[in-house]
């Protein structure tokens, strides 16, 4: 065992534990904090994969901006303990066996698929990092139009949020 493996397993365990905490927590604020844990450990995994810019964006945008928005709305709405309600009978008696068979089938498919075998064996990843310079060259040359389109998307989202959340006259 060496350092990348140890780092990977620690971060993977933290991410899965955060996701499980998100499901088990009954207070929404605890779920939000668990999601921040998942995002932080994913940022470390991106660094491990050599994607420094994405790791920084993950922390700034996801763990920073988006989760602050979530926490802000939880505080604003004074969200308390979640109510538990019963599931429908179809979901209880047909859903669980079907989900189990789906998992079984996916596992069987993964074990026998040729693509899966190639991915499992292919690990010839070089250790060089994806540089931010190269990423920005991609972003501003071949992907320039989608990049500019996202700015319009953000503008529409801001206007939409304002229109939806304002008080009716």
């Amino acid at each position, binding site marked *: 065992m060496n350092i*990348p493996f140890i780092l990977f397993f620690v971060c*993977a365990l933290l991410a*899965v534990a955060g996701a499980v905490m998100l499901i088990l927590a009954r207070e929404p604020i605890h779920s939000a904090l668990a999601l921040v844990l998942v*995002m932080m450990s994913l940022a470390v995994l991106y660094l491990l994969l050599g994607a420094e810019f994405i790791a920084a964006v993950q922390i700034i*945008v996801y763990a920073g901006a988006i989760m602050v*928005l979530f926490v802000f*709305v939880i505080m604003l709405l004074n969200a308390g303990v*979640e109510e538990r309600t019963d599931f429908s009978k179809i979901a209880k008696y047909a859903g669980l066996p079907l989900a189990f068979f789906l998992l079984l089938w996916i596992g069987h498919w993964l074990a026998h698929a040729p693509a899966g075998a190639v991915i499992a064996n292919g690990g010839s990843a070089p250790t060089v990092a994806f540089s931010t310079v190269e990423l920005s060259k*991609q972003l501003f040359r071949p992907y320039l139009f989608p990049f500019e389109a996202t700015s319009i998307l953000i503008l529409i989202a801001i206007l939409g949020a304002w229109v939806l959340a304002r008080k009716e006259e």
Partner: protein
Amino acid sequence: MIVPVSYYLVLSAILFGLGVVAFVFKRNVITIFMSIELMLNAVNLAFVAFARAHNQLDGLVFVFFVIVVAAAEAAVGLAIVITLVRNRESLNVERVNLLKF
């Protein structure tokens, strides 16, 4: 020695599955939004892992776009949640049953 790409893909699949489970089992509309974010994060991890496997930057550009769309979706979605709570006075999605058969 480097961590194989398949490890990241398995972690991504586990996180996505947990996101689906949270989406189905949670009753609080804000927590359901958070589980959508969890699924998007799992997909981002798969994108970065494949970008590393093929040593191409296009996967990272897509992660960038996914993050932008997630931010827009969170802003609009939380505005919808605020409107919903103003009208229904409950965060439970079971109470939002006007169109339910």
